[in-house]
């Protein structure tokens, strides 16, 4: 088989149950090199469970999980990381009181010297951190400054740059933009595009279609633990996507209900209300 045609990450009918709760049912998705897959869904749709399953926190109860065509089972996030699947969590991305360079290399510090004189090569760490961030378009003033001095968007970006530097083939981003303002979210989206340009495949989790639509190549919409299908950008319009995410019929019913309260038909399209 042609190497380029093998998906870097593939899920086939993944299911995950917590007791009697069906958190995920028959989720299938494929992700190619240099592709951004947006995972969309309302709260409780199963987005978090799905990424935790893909990143090695949970083990699926049934279904196949393949990395570069090879079936895998991960017992820990570290094992997933060793297979090139890096997850950047919204809150756990960085340790605020540590410097950018120390954060960047935590767990994979460059060393110099040998034997008992082997030491953490701070100079190289600082230089690499700076250079890698510059590559992503993040211009930091001082790699020794604490991560706490960075803005939320910058922190996410540093985490993304770190994952890319350490050879991530797949980058799973858990709601990287949800806590950010418009401008900062734009910054993060730009870094996602840069990572894609470097050949990294990205799974971008969000509940904001306005962040997903500009960057995504494919869109998988989750609802109540199932997929409503995967669409390429050509196949789906933004408005249609919003409708599917929040449940079109429910929205129609709600609109109808609300119209009865106000007594006139001037509600307008409710879908617009969710736009920022």
């Amino acid at each position, binding site marked *: 088989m042609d190497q380029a045609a093998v998906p870097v990450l593939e899920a086939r009918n993944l299911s995950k149950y917590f007791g009697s709760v069906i958190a995920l049912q028959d989720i299938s998705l494929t992700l190619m090199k240099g592709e951004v897959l947006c995972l969309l869904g309302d709260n409780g749709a199963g987005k978090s469970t799905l990424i935790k399953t893909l990143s090695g926190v949970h083990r699926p109860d049934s279904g196949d999980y393949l990395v570069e065509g090879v079936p895998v089972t991960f017992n820990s996030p570290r094992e997933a990381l060793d297979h090139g699947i890096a997850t950047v969590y919204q809150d756990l991305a960085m*340790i605020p009181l540590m410097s950018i360079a*120390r954060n960047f290399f*935590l*767990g994979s*510090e460059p060393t110099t010297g040998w034997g008992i004189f082997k030491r*953490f090569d701070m100079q190289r760490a600082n230089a690499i951190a700076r*250079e890698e961030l510059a590559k992503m378009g993040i211009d930091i003033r001082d790699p020794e400054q604490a991560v706490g001095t*960075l803005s939320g968007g910058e922190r996410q970006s540093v985490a993304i740059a770190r994952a890319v530097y350490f050879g991530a083939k797949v980058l799973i981003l858990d709601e990287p933009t949800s806590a950010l303002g418009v401008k900062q979210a734009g910054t993060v989206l730009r870094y996602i595009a840069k990572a894609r340009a470097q050949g990294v495949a990205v799974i971008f989790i969000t509940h904001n279609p306005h962040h997903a639509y500009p960057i995504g190549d494919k869109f998988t919409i989750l609802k109540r633990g199932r997929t409503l299908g995967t669409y390429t950008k050509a196949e789906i319009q933004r408005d249609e996507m919003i409708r599917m995410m929040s449940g079109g019929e429910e929205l129609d019913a709600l609109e109808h209900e609300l119209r009865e309260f106000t007594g006139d038909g001037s509600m307008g399209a409710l879908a617009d209300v969710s736009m920022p």
Partner: protein
Amino acid sequence: MTIKTVEKPDERVRREGTLRKLLRRPELGAVGGALLVWLFFAATAGDRGFLSLRGTANYLEVAAELGILAVAVALLMIAGEFDLSVGSMIGATGMITAVLSVEMGWNIWAAIAVSLVFALAVGAINGVLVNRTKLPSFIITLATLFIIRGMTVGFTRLITGRTQVSGIKEALGFDSAAAFFASSLKILDPSSARGAMAEFSVSILWWFLVAALATYILLRTRPGNWIFGIGGDETAARNVGVPVNRMKIYLFMATALTAWLVSTIQVLSVGSADTLRGEQREFFAIIAVVIGGTLLTGGYGSAIGAVFGALIYGMVSQGIVFTGVDSDWFLVFMGAMLIIAVLVNNYIRKQASEAK
């Protein structure tokens, strides 16, 4: 894509960077505090011997015996854990050395080696218990504090019928061991009219050695980076592959090791062991560490800070004697010092690490 090398300094980094770099160091507050305390006692008790060589040797030795302990406790606390068992560990290891060398007639080196093994084993047990039970180390080591102290008193009375063992200076191999742990450098004190000698204890040297090693590990090695990471966010550290459990076990072993070193120094310089020795050392060690700028919740701090925290402790506890004030007031002073230090350190940390 071409990458510009970043050799030339960034125009947005102001040249006054040294000051900010200094502000970023956790120990800044403790260094300033130590200077203030020294000035205070120099002014109030300078003419009564605080400034003399003998006075200096005196408070340095007191600071050293706490400082050795505080340095290891600092590393542990930066990793987000506590060790309250170090105080009773001092009593236990000292007693093991004394009982084996005096009552059993062992060579003192062998006795010291056995108590070292005991300390490392108990430290490892502390670490394993914390890892396995996931309970706060505060609780685990509070329990081991009592267990170790109780067993020390119980066994000692069972074996010797007393709670004190003396006569260590007559033990086999004492002279060579004392050279290592209990010797001193004698310098003629010029302020003394009768030619008294100031004795700088070798424990001061041990203190500096331990502090230098800890600082090197913390700032210049991979495990040092892991210690910060574990204290900052244990889950995040684990997710990037930091061996969190192993590091914690090593750190508990390190605090036990320094407790052993302190007890060995004490036993050899005093010539006796007491089951109650080391009482409340765990609290004074934590105070020294916190005064030294280490965050109680972990993730931030320094070993040098703990050195200065211990120095403050030494100067206050001895300086108060020189001033002629009743030393009963010492505890009040240390408690007040602790609160002031935490407030100052919090302020400095905010300045250094928050988004402007």
